[in-house]
């Protein structure tokens, strides 16, 4: 029998499809709940979501709190936050994990403020540690500069809330034989509660290969500025059939768009091959591709931290190396 306050995951749906990051969080949630010997429970807000609830149980949820209302089909900022906060007050979860989609990032801080608890953004790892025999959630985020990681804790307030970016955690295996319980919740929602009303949600198709789906990604950084610009990165990507990404300075230089930014405040990707060009390797960039299968880095500074997280480090002047590399790859791919 599982006792104690549960581990919760808010699993977001859009157009009645589960967002991947929620499923990824269930994998981590299962690990945490087994360690604490408590239930793994999910909160599912939407309309006609029964099929999604079955999916969630197949991915490990012991309980699915299903909140169904035609008005909640699409994300509604203040009402979703009220519903979630009320459920937290009623059931006192120990931990609440939320996927850091744009909507998750809109919801999580509001809920944390409502129940007056701590919230750690964009964790790259979560685990249970103990302090004098009392288990707590260790939330790991990248620190500034160098290869430092910071462990954040929330010692007194509950739930311990954390957001995690899509792609950071691995998706768990699906097991249709798993059983769980669906608990329907019917909150009292008045039309006047919708102070912000989502009137339209439009999903657009991505242009080109989205970096999070590409097998190969070539990313450029600040070092290209003094080496004559971003063009070689695009040429390299073309030869490899790769998607193009980059660091925040590359976005600031308008070499790439926001949705091509890799790292803590951008995307987390796990391609088969990741090539970094002219990026020194600050932690807030490198956390975005650490789980790639093979990492190659190209930079002129042999001491750059990027080489510590790479399998292959190619050192030299970018202006000399890149044309050779493009030509050499043309021969072999």
């Amino acid at each position, binding site marked *: 029998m599982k006792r104690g306050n549960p581990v919760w995951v808010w699993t977001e749906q859009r157009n009645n499809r589960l967002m991947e990051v929620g499923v990824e969080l269930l994998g981590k949630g299962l690990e945490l709940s087994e360690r604490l010997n408590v239930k793994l429970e999910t909160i599912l807000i939407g309309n006609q979501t029964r099929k999604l609830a079955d999916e969630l149980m197949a991915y490990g949820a012991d309980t699915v709190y299903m909140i169904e209302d035609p008005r909640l089909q699409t*994300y509604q*900022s203040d009402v979703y936050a009220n519903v979630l906060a009320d459920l937290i007050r009623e059931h006192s979860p120990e931990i609440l994990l939320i996927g850091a*989609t*744009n*909507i998750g*990032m*809109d919801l999580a*801080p*509001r809920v*944390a*403020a409502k129940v007056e608890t*701590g*919230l750690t*953004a*964009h964790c790259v790892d979560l685990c249970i540690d103990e302090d004098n025999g009392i288990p707590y959630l*260790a939330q790991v985020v990248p*620190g*500034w*500069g160098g*290869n*430092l*990681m910071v*462990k*954040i*804790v*929330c010692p007194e307030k509950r739930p311990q809330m954390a957001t995690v970016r899509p792609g950071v955690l691995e998706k768990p295996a699906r097991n249709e034989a798993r059983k769980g319980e669906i608990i329907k919740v019917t909150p009292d929602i008045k039309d006047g509660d919708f*102070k*912000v009303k*989502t*009137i339209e*949600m*439009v*999903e*657009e198709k991505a242009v080109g290969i*989205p970096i999070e789906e590409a097998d190969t990604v070539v990313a450029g950084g600040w070092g290209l500025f003094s080496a004559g610009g971003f063009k070689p990165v695009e040429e390299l990507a073309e030869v490899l059939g790769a998607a193009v990404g980059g660091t*925040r300075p590359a976005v600031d230089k308008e070499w790439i768009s926001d*949705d091509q930014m890799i790292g*803590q405040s951008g995307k987390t990707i796990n391609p088969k091959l990741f090539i970094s060009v002219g990026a*020194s390797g600050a932690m*807030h960039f490198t956390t975005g591709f*650490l789980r790639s299968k*093979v990492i190659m880095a190209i930079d002129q500074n*042999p001491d750059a931290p990027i*080489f*510590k997280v*790479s*399998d*292959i*480090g*190619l*050192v*030299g*002047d970018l202006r*000399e*190396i890149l044309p*050779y*590399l493009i030509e*050499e*790859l043309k021969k*072999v791919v």
Partner: protein
Amino acid sequence: MSLDIVVCIKQVPDPEYFSRITIDPVKQTIRRDGIPTIINPLDKHALEEGLKIKEKFSGKVTAVTMGPPSAREVLEEALALGIDDAVLLCDRAFAGADTLATAYPLASGIKKLGNFDLILCGNETVDGATGQVGPQLAELLGIPHVTFVNEIEWTNERDLIVKSTLERGYMKLQVTLPVLLSVVKEINEPRLPTVLGIMEATEKEIKFFNAKDIDVREGTIGLAGSPTRVADVFEHKSKRKGEIIEGLPEDAVKRAVKRLRELKAI
């Protein structure tokens, strides 16, 4: 009718110097001495939007920041852009705050100023990058919020439709003032300060509020009022091979490509 607009801004280390920031392994605090500071880039878009809305409907734009005395620099810059008032929430008791303990004094400071119709923030800062303070501030002020705002369409002086960026696509949301909006850079092109603006700014006064001035609830500010703590700082150990290939470019490239093939990466 005119609008009272508050823009929340933050002084942050210049991202171009991030690699120079280190963490004190003993005190576990961030060492950012000697790192140049700037207005958080998205906050410039929030200031611009505030000024544009004032020009449209008339009203007053007040910039608020929380930070050490040196944070007055970002307020001076905001004044030079043409805002009307500037407030610095400055008290040692505010130090070490996480996002919730930042939102509390901001909320109290804004309430202290009196009436407000619209609060604007940058969607996130380049240092913390949490994007949490905006929504938390809205909650504490008891007003709705919208994040990732890339467009505002005014139906009239109280009602607006805002567009919010999604991963791929967008949402359109309807809301009535008062509201807090966290903006992204696509919303506008920030203006540059004019010489006249800079001169006028020197005559404007910056208001300083400490913890007592704003009647902030005890136990909600600073490190003591922060639900989260830094428990440890440690080095990240990579399991990568870290093989370095140097030498004549043509030869080094050949060896690197050979390794890529051996690892079956291409």
